[in-house]
């Protein structure tokens, strides 16, 4: 809870996915969830938006490589005046530059936003994978072996959550980025990207671990684990073969909700000066740069900000719908 939502929302929406469905007569939980999800129009729109963003994320670097979009070429001819502001209305919008150009450099804004989506999504996905990986392993260990392992992991979680996380994310940057460079990762942005993925992933795993631990504690009371044990299955085999299929629902829901918080986290880090630096575009550093022109060139300020907002909103809406679809109690009749 220490990473306050208001500050940057690395604490995802509360989820009740812990009560994931077990079985309802006839249809499998999968089918029920799919049917419910399909019926949720908002979630489906959000899903389409996510697919669109995913396609952009994959295609943008290719388009840049083949020259369809161009995020790097400077267009000094398109900016003018003392502030080197874009020529023309609304930040220099034209057929060649649908969202206008950046002040000073005259680079194409749309291209930069598209490429920014690529890097932001890649970072968020990677950080989510790190969080899920660490959280699932440590959560399984805590839930399954209980005792000393559970206690140690619990205390470790307490310790991590006691740190002011946002401050740590930026404070660790000078120390760790240098370390990563020393360790052989190219200096500059590659080291920074690695750093951002690592710290976001690291500060995110406790939430996953807690959910997984709770799930394991309740699942191991159920018969199938006992049955597998009696049939002589090895502990580790039970952990991964028998339990994981029952954990997919909470992991999936929680990942969908945590991913957008990582996207805004990257932007927040850029804003506080420890993010990826231009000319490599991210939504965060575009927004950070555009702050200086917020009143003079609102297009430049609003375009990356609104893109960021729409990406985050789409993930939140979809995650919300997914959770409702997987939670059998969510269609409970109203109060009396």
């Amino acid at each position, binding site marked *: 809870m220490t990473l306050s939502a208001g500050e940057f929302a690395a604490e995802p*929406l509360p989820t009740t996915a812990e009560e994931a469905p077990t079985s309802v007569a006839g249809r499998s939980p999968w089918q029920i969830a799919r049917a419910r999800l399909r019926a949720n129009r908002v979630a489906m729109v959000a899903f389409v938006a996510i697919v669109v963003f995913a396609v952009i994320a994959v295609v943008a670097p290719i388009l840049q490589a083949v020259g369809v979009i161009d995020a790097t070429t400077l267009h000094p001819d398109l900016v003018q005046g003392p502030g080197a502001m874009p020529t023309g209305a609304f930040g220099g919008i034209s057929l060649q530059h649908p969202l206008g150009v950046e002040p000073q450099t005259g680079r194409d804004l749309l291209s930069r936003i598209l490429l920014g989506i690529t890097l932001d999504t890649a970072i968020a996905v990677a950080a989510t994978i790190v969080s899920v990986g660490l959280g699932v392993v440590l959560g399984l260990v805590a839930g399954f072996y209980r005792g000393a392992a559970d206690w140690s992991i619990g205390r470790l979680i307490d*310790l991590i959550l006691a740190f002011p996380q946002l401050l740590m994310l930026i404070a660790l940057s*000078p120390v760790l980025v240098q370390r990563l460079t020393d360790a052989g990762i190219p200096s500059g942005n590659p080291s920074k990207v690695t750093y951002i993925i690592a710290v976001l992933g690291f500060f995110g795993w406790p939430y996953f671990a807690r959910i997984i631990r709770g799930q394991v504690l309740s699942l191991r009371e159920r018969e199938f684990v006992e049955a597998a044990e009696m049939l002589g299955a090895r502990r580790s085999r039970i952990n991964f073969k028998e339990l994981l299929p029952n954990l997919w629902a909470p992991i999936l829901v929680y990942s969908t909700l945590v991913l957008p918080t990582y996207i805004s986290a990257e932007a927040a880090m850029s804003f506080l000066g420890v993010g990826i630096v231009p000319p490599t575009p991210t939504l965060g550093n575009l927004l950070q740069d555009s702050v200086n022109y917020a009143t003079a060139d609102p297009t430049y300020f609003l375009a990356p900000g609104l893109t960021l907002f729409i990406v*985050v909103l789409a993930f939140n809406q979809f995650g919300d719908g997914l959770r409702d679809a997987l939670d059998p109690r969510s269609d409970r009749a109203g109060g009396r």
Partner: protein
Amino acid sequence: MFQYILKRLLSIVGMLVLISISVFALFFAVPADPARLTCGKNCTPAIIEANRHALGYDKPIVTQYLDFMKGLVSERDFPDDPVIAKNSPQSITHCPAPCLGYSVTQGQLVSKMIKDAFPITASIAVGAFVLWIVGGVGIGVLSALKRGTLLERGLVSASLVAYSLPTFFIGLLLLNIVSIKYGLAPAAGYTPFLDDPVAWAQGMILPWITLAMVFAALYVRLTRANMLETLSEDYIRTARAKGVPEWAVIARHAMRAALTPIVTIAGLDLGGVLAGAAITETVFNLNGIGKTGVYAIQQLDLPVIVAVVLLSAFVIVLFNFVVDLLYAFLDPRVTLR
């Protein structure tokens, strides 16, 4: 009860010691040389070396850590050097306990910086807290009671939109568009409450809204979910069967149970923002704990970084503790062990 409090206090101390050790280990391993920051352009290696020695940066990390910890209970002097003390006593800064160190870049005692920054952070945090609790919980309860209506849908959607807006984007939007461009709101700034309460509130309005927005959205969702859950409980049916009027069923029975968990979350979140609202403070250029920390990080001002992180951790751990006590007080089923 007494035993529990004692145990918790001990574990808090243990936790803070652990945190302080990790912070020292992390930051004093930093490649940047803090002594380098002590003098300006015309620096000679000799001066740097002298300053390094005077400020104790040449001592092993463990000794520096122990000195720091000692400073929490006893006074220190900066630089702690008998020769300087003898020759030019006016250049010595005396640091009374609890001493958090001396910031060379700022030429100030860290405790003084914190003392100046904390009221600003507290002003932002408390005002935003009131705003998001009143707004979030109020709208949450309302949307639960209006379940299935258009109003509920609108409120829930609006809360998700607000939740998806990054804090600094909201802040920048309010600052640049609402305040600067159209002048619809007073500019942000800090006036001590005791000097001029009206100016204090005016300067805080935008930071409050910025910080409260995302929290309010979160609390709408939490409150709504808890209310719906509670309204389907058996004891709510019992209350209705007793003939309790509907308003009292909601206020006395449902809200009492639905809002108790919110109290604990609110306590933790308040602790979180009191530990520094770095983004909001940076957006509105208010020198609270968060911005002090961010600035120190940018300047690699190690004593300040360490102090801010430790103070924030202390506030967070303390609020965890208070919230646990509060919960035991609010929920009769909880016993402290």
